[in-house]
C-alpha cells in the first residue's frame, strides 16, 4: 500500500478505535479487575482482593439465582411469542399475495420506534386498575373482575411485562421476516407455482427453508437484547411486586446502587455477559453452519 | 505518448491467481491488447500499470520514468473501467470534468475541453443528464470521454471497455473504436476476454492464461502460429478441434494415427521427424474444415482428406452454420460460411487440407507445425 493510502487508512480508523478502546475495553477491564475485590463505592470498606468470592456469593445468592430464572423465563416466553406471531403474520401476508403489508408496515413499526421508557409508562397506564383500558375492557367482556391489579401479583406482573414486550417487538420480527420472504427470488416462487405447489407446499418447502438464516439473525438480535432488558421492567413494575419480576439487569443495578457493592455487581454483570456470549455463540454457530 | 515497459512483474492475487514474471512492451501509438479468459490476469495488469495495485516485485516504466511506486495521479495514465465507474451523483459534464478539476485547471478551460471531447464522442446532448438516465452505449461513450479528456496522459488503459454492451451494439462500437484510435494516435493498453475483439483491434496481441504470458506478437502471427494448444483453442473465431493421436513410420510413409482416422503426412517429414513414434495432438480449425454431404469418389489429390462421420448437431449463426460432426464419439466443429440445415444423424464427410493442419506435442502442448 503506498504511503498516502496507509496514512489515510490509519486516520480513518483511529478515532473510532480510540473511542471503542476507551469506552468499550477500559470499562470491561475495570469491571474484571474490581470484580475480584471487595469494592464498595463511597463506603468505608477495605478494597481488597477477595479472589472469586464475589462470583461465588452471587451464584449462591437466592435473589440473583431468582433474577436469572426470571430473565430466562422472560427471554424464552417473550421471544418465543414474538417469533410465533411475527413469522406467522409475515407468512400469511406473503402467501395471500397482497401489497397491504407494504403500506401498513410503517404503522406496525411505531411501537418499536418509541422510547422504551414511554412504552413502559404507556403500559403502566393501560394496566392501571382504575384508569387503564385493559382492566376496563377485560371486565366489560366479563373476562376478569374490574378491580384486579395486574401488576400486583407475581404471575400477572410478569405476564404483563411479557405482553408489553411482545407488543413492542413483534413488529420487528414481522417486518424483517416479511422482507426476507420478499427477497426470495421471484423465479423460485413462480417455478413452484407453475409446478403446481399449493400454499402449504410453498410455506413448508420453499419459504421456511429459505428464511432460516434471516430468522436466526433476528433471533440473535432479539435474544441478546431481551437478556439485557432494563428500561421496560424498571418503569412497568420496578421489579415488583417484591422481587418477582427482578430481571438480571435490575438485580445488578440494585447491587450497585442500593448496596453500593460495585465489586459484586461487576461479578454479576460479567456473568450476564458470559451467558450472552455463550448464547450468542450458539446462535452464530448455527448461522455459520448455514442451517 | 510514451512507451510502456513492464518488467518481470509478479503479484499474488489470492489463491486463484498470481501474476508471474510478466514482461512486455507496449509501443508508442499502438494498441496493445491483453487477451485472456476471465480471471486470467489482464485486469490485474491494468491495475498495476495504473497504480491501483502494487507489485510484489518487478518494475513498470513509462517513457523514461520508473513509475513502479508512484501514486496513480503521479503516473500520467488514464483508465477506462469495465464497469465504467461513472459517478452516479454527478451529471455527464461533471463526470468528464473530474480529471481536469483534479488538475486545478481554470473553469473556462475545463468547459472548453469537456465540450470538445463531448462533441467528438457525440454525447453533447447528454451533458447535463445523470449517467443513470443514459442508454448503455451512451454511458460507454461518457466513460471513454472521461478517460480521453485527460490529454496529459502518456498511456490510456482500457479494461474491457465493450464487454458490458449488447452483442449487436458491441460489433458496431468495435469498428468505431478502431477509427477513433487511428485518429487520436496514442499508446493504448486494451484488455479483453473476447478473441474476436482482440484479433480485430490489436496492433500487438498478448495472450495470457492463469497469470502468465503465453504468447505475444501480431494478431495474424498468433492466429497462424499458435504456440500451444491453449492459444490455438482460445485465439480464433471458434475453438480449434483437437484430436489425440501419434505419428508412426510405415516403411517409407509417415502416418498420423488417431482413433478417428489415419492419414498420410509424408510431406510434412521435415517438421515432424523428431516426433516419430511419439504422441501428438492434431488441431483442425473449424473455419478451415468443410462438410461434404455426398460420398467423395477417390481422393482427388493426396493433400485433401475425407473423413466419414455423422451430423451430431448444428447451429445457425448469422450467415454461418456451425456443424458438429461426430466421428467415433468425438465431436468436431466445422464452420461453414453459409446457412445450411442438416438432418441430425445423417452421414457426412469431413474435408480438410494437409496444409491446414496443426500438430502439437501431446505432453507439452507446444506447436510442432
Amino acid at each position, binding site marked *: 500500500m503506498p504511503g498516502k493510502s496507509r496514512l489515510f487508512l490509519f486516520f480513518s480508523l483511529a478515532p473510532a478505535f480510540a473511542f471503542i478502546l476507551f469506552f468499550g475495553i477500559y470499562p470491561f477491564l475495570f469491571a474484571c479487575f474490581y470484580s475480584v475485590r471487595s469494592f464498595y463505592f463511597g463506603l468505608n470498606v477495605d478494597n481488597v482482593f477477595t479472589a472469586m468470592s464475589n462470583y461465588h456469593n452471587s451464584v449462591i445468592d437466592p435473589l440473583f439465582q431468582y433474577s436469572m430464572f426470571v430473565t430466562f423465563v422472560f427471554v424464552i416466553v417473550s421471544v418465543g411469542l414474538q417469533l410465533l406471531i411475527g413469522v406467522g403474520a409475515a407468512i400469511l401476508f406473503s402467501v395471500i399475495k397482497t401489497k397491504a403489508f407494504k403500506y401498513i408496515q410503517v404503522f406496525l413499526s411505531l411501537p418499536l420506534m418509541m422510547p422504551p421508557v414511554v412504552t413502559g409508562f404507556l403500559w403502566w397506564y393501560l394496566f392501571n386498575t382504575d384508569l387503564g383500558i385493559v382492566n376496563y375492557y377485560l371486565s366489560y367482556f366479563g373476562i376478569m373482575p374490574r378491580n384486579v391489579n395486574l401488576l400486583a401479583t407475581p404471575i400477572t406482573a410478569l405476564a404483563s411485562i411479557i405482553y408489553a414486550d411482545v407488543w413492542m417487538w413483534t413488529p420487528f420480527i414481522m417486518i424483517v421476516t416479511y422482507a426476507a420472504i420478499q427477497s426470495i*427470488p421471484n*423465479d*423460485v416462487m*413462480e*417455478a*413452484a*407455482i*407453475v*409446478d*403446481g*405447489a*399449493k400454499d402449504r*407446499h410453498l410455506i413448508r*418447502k*420453499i419459504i421456511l*427453508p*429459505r428464511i432460516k438464516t434471516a430468522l436466526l439473525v433476528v433471533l440473535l438480535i432479539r435474544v441478546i437484547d431481551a437478556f439485557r432488558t432494563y428500561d421496560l421492567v424498571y418503569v412497568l413494575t420496578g421489579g415488583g411486586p417484591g422481587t418477582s419480576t427482578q430481571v438480571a439487569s435490575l438485580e445488578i443495578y440494585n447491587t450497585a446502587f442500593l448496596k453500593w457493592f460495585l465489586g459484586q455487581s461487576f461479578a454479576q454483570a460479567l456473568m450476564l455477559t458470559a451467558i450472552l456470549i455463550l448464547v450468542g455463540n450458539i446462535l452464530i454457530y448455527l448461522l455459520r453452519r448455514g442451517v | 505518448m510514451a512507451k510502456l515497459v513492464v518488467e518481470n512483474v509478479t503479484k499474488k492475487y489470492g489463491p486463484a491467481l498470481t501474476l508471474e514474471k510478466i514482461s512486455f512492451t507496449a509501443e508508442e501509438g499502438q494498441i496493445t491488447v491483453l487477451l485472456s479468459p476471465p480471471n486470467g490476469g489482464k485486469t490485474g495488469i491494468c491495475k498495476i500499470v495504473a497504480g491501483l495495485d502494487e507489485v510484489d516485485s518487478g518494475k513498470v516504466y513509462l517513457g523514461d520514468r520508473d513509475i513502479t511506486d508512484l501514486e496513480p495521479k503521479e503516473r500520467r495514465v488514464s483508465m477506462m473501467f469495465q464497469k465504467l465507474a461513472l459517478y452516479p451523483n454527478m451529471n455527464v459534464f461533471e463526470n468528464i470534468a473530474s480529471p481536469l478539476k483534479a488538475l486545478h485547471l481554470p473553469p473556462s478551460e475545463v468547459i472548453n475541453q469537456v465540450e470538445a471531447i463531448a462533441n467528438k464522442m457525440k454525447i453533447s446532448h447528454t451533458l447535463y443528464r445523470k449517467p443513470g438516465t443514459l442508454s448503455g452505449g451512451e454511458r460507454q461513450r461518457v466513460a471513454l470521454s472521461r478517460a480521453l479528456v485527460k490529454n496529459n496522459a502518456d498511456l490510456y488503459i482500457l479494461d474491457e471497455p465493450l464487454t458490458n454492451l*449488447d*452483442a*449487436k451494439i458491441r*460489433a*458496431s462500437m*468495435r*469498428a468505431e473504436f*478502431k*477509427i477513433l484510435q487511428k485518429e487520436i494516435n496514442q499508446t493504448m493498453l486494451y484488455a479483453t476476454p473476447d478473441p*474476436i475483439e482482440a*484479433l*480485430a483491434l490489436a496492433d500487438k496481441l498478448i495472450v495470457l492464461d492463469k497469470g502468465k504470458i503465453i504468447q505475444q506478437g501480431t494478431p*495474424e502471427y498468433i*492466429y497462424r502460429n499458435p504456440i500451444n494448444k491453449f492459444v490455438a483453442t482460445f485465439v*480464433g*473465431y471458434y475453438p480449434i478441434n483437437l484430436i489425440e493421436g501419434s505419428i508412426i513410420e510405415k516403411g517409407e510413409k509417415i502416418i498420423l494415427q488417431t482413433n478417428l482416422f489415419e492419414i498420410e503426412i509424408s510431406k510434412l517429414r521435415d517438421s515432424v521427424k523428431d516426433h516419430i513414434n511419439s504422441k501428438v495432438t492434431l488441431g483442425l*480449425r473449424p*473455419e*478451415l474444415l468443410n462438410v461434404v454431404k455426398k460420398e467423395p469418389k477417390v481422393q482427388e489429390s493426396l493433400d485433401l482428406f475425407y473423413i466419414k462421420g455423422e451430423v*451430431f*448437431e*448444428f*447451429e*445457425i*449463426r*448469422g*450467415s454461418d452454420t456451425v456443424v*458438429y460432426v461426430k466421428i467415433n464419439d468425438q*465431436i468436431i466443429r466445422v*464452420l461453414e*460460411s453459409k*446457412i445450411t440445415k442438416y438432418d*441430425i444423424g445423417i452421414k457426412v464427410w469431413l474435408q480438410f487440407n494437409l496444409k491446414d493442419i496443426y500438430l502439437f506435442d501431446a505432453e507439452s502442448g507446444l506447436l510442432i507445425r
Partner: protein
Amino acid sequence: MVKVVLENVGKVFKGSKKAKETVAVKGFTAEFPSNKVVGILGPSGCGKTTTLRAIAGLDPPSEGKIYFEDKDVTYLPPIERDAALLFQFAVVYDNMTVFDNLAFPLMVKNINKEEINKRVKETAEFLGLSDILKKRAKGLPASINQKIALGRAIIRKPKVLLLDEPLSSLDPESRLYLRRELKKVIRSMDTTVVYVTHDQSEAMTLCDKIAVMNEGKVHQYDTPENIYLNPATTFVAWFIGEPGMNLIDCSMEASEGKYYIKIDGVSDVSFEVSKWSHALKESDKIVLGIRPEFITITKTYKKNSIAGKCLVIESFGSFALLDILTNCSPNNIIKVKTPLSDDLPKVDGDVYLTFPPAYIRLFDKKSGELRVVMTE
C-alpha cells in the same frame, strides 16, 4: 398436444409515481401449431418474456385472449393450465435433493410413492441425472441445474412447454449438449413448445417458426429461412444476421417509361424496378437492404458499383468483415463480409461494391415495411 392461440394479446404495466405506464405487448395474434417449436425472438425489453408469462398464467394479459386448443385459458391460474415453464436462470430448490426436485411437481399432486419413484427414475435416466439423484441440489453446475429444471418440467408431461432463454446462461459447451437434450425431449413428447430468446442463432437453429418482436410488437412471424432472406421490416433486417443488413436510403426515378432505384448520394448506381413499380409508388422514400455477405467487393471499378474506401478490416481466419466508407446515407459505412483471400483490399485502399440485384430488398422508409423482393 394442443395448439396455442393468441388473440390480440396485449399487456400494459400500470404506471406508478416512479415508473410511467408502459406498454409491454400490443396486439399479439398468432397460432402456435401443436407439436412444433415456435420461437419468440427480440432484443431485451421487447415484450417476449411478458408474452410467455401470459401464456404460463403467471401474469394474465390486460387485453386479448389465450386459447389452448379451444379452451379459453386467459385467466386460469398456472396450476390448471398444464403448462411447464423453464426460466433463464435454472430454478432448482436447493434445499432439496435432486430426487426431491424432480419429484416435487408429482408430490404436490399427491401421487403415490411408487408412481413417483418410477417416474423420477425414468426422467433421470432420460436426462442422464441418475447418478446424482441423492445429492443435494445446491452448488451443482449451471448446466446440471438447467437439466434438473428441465426434468421437473417434463416429469408431469405438460401439454405446453414454455422456455425462457433456458440456454443463455450456460457456457457454449454445455449449451451444445443441453440443446441436443432439449431436441430429444421435444421429439419424444407430445407437446407444443414456445421458445423465448434474444439469441438469433438459438431461434434459427431450434425453431420451426419464429416471431420477431420489438417494442411490444410482432414484426414478423415466419419460418427462419424467410426471416433471414425476406425480413418483413427494416428492424428484422437489422436485427437478424451478424452483422445485420446494410440499410441504405434510396429514391425511385422514372426515365423513358422505366423505373429505377437510385442510391442517395451516389450518382451512377441504379437498379431497374419497373416490374415492381406499383408496389413502390406509394412510398416517397425507399430503403435498400442488402446483407453484408452478398455484396461483391473489388479493387477495380466495375459497372454499377459504389466507390468507397476501406476503413477497417476485421479478419476472422476464414473470412473478413470490412467497414467501407461511402457516400451513402444515413450511415455512410457499409459492412461487407467476404471470404479471406490474398486479394483483400488494404486499409485505406479504394474499393468498389457491387450489389447483386437478386439479394436486394426494398423497404418503405416511413413504415419500415418490406415492399419488394427483387428476384431476377
